[in-house]
């Protein structure tokens, strides 16, 4: 579902990603870990084409990103749900409107959109915050809004960048439960995190990054 073949990404002469190759199968849940600055966020950004690789080949959900023209980028991104490290919520729109955005962008109409927002908010345990505005939510609640927005479109791939950063262990566990639910429904998930508690004993594959390189 995600395949990297000797991918390199350089910023101002520094290699943020250096010759990385790996493959994640359809329906697999995997973790990406490594110290701060090791390139986790950069790797994820390469997947949804916010960054372009300098070298190597990336294939995501059947799209060869080297051959992607700019008008196809939106359609790639509809197949990749992203839980951003910095959330990227719209502060002046309600939780419902924020989550619904994913569907609106795909041209999904009122009734269906409303229903799916309601069921997705129930899944992440935020049904009671439907009409709240993001700035009035706690960090964990905002995190779950972002997850709801990422999964509501049933993307082929779900990426999560530090989804439990700064959250207490209980809240973090609740969020991991959501990911496990999505995974149990057949979702392909890649989670970038510093937190060993998330991936230890998970039974999932773990990719370790160090200075842009994948450790064996």
């Amino acid at each position: 579902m995600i395949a990297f073949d000797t991918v390199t990404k350089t910023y101002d002469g520094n290699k943020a990603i250096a010759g990385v190759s790996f493959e994640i199968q359809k329906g697999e849940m995997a973790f990406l870990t490594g110290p701060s600055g090791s390139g986790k966020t950069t790797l994820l950004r390469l997947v949804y084409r916010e960054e372009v690789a300098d070298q190597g080949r990336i294939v995501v959900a059947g799209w060869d990103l080297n051959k992607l023209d700019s008008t196809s980028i939106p359609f790639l991104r509809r197949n990749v749900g992203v839980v951003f490290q910095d959330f990227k919520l719209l502060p002046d729109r309600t939780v419902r409107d924020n989550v619904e955005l994913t569907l609106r962008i795909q041209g999904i109409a009122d009734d269906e959109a409303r229903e799916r927002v309601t069921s997705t908010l129930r899944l992440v345990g935020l049904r009671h915050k439907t009409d709240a505005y993001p700035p009035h939510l706690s960090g964990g609640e905002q995190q779950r809004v972002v997850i709801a927005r990422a999964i509501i479109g049933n993307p082929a791939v779900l990426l999560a960048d530090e989804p439990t950063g700064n959250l207490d262990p209980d809240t973090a566990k609740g969020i991991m439960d959501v990911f496990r639910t999505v995974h149990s429904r057949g979702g392909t998930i890649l989670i970038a995190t510093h937190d060993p508690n998330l991936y230890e004993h998970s039974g999932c594959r773990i990719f370790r990054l160090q200075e842009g390189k994948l450790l064996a």
Partner: protein
Amino acid sequence: MFIYHVRTAWLSLARNAGINLLTVFSLAVGLSLVAITVLSVFGLHTAVKEWTSGFGMVAYLAEGLPTKGQEALRDRLSREPGIRSVELVSAEDALRELEGALGKEMLQGLEANPLPASIRIFLSPGNLDVARVKELAGRLAGMDGIVEVEYGQKWVERMAVAARQFGLAGSALGLSLGIGIIFILSNTIKILFYRRAQEIDILKLLGATQGFIRAPFLIEGVFFGILSGGVAALGTFLARNWVSGKFGFVIETPWPLQFTEPLIVLVGAVLGLAGSFIALGRIRL
């Protein structure tokens, strides 16, 4: 989906209501000026036309033309297109009118009547422009029995030239106002766009196409145009009614006059769309 974009556009307008009202107001002033300029141009044309037809013409008849001949000529002229009515004034009638105007004593010394017979011609309003009046006068002057044709040549021509120049100046003014309106609109849309740059980045990350991102801004431009067009239409309607009430003067326009206000709103909408097209065309997504 269209309704969703309309709602998005409306919310965006409402969020900055104060500053947007200011924009709407200045655009409305611009549109009103365009409307007033256009109406003034057509108003002057109407005035010149009415004035020209009020002038009429006088055809002086040859001396010694018998009454029969005069009457035949009168009947012939009354059938000419562009002439509403004619009136035969015999030499005697003309003298009597002159006596009435000057007093009998003034004319006591005259032995013979020096005045020629004439036909007064009243032009039909409506199909009158200067060129046609001139052409008609020339044709009449060439007829047997007519010595000379007189009309307010100088004045009619001057008025026509003035009206044409006014029309040119009006078109130039209207055009530059229109460009100014598009400029203000496109800048407003650009500002709105940059104010929402963060939101647009997020939309792109969620897979929005350029069309999805641009649609609300195009609609916002049209909203601006329609709102300011509405205000300008109201102003123009009041001004127009005041003029016709005060001077009893109804402007002739190429369109039915009561369509003026809807037309202003339409022009506003078109300018709004043009403004946001220009704004978005310059912005790279």
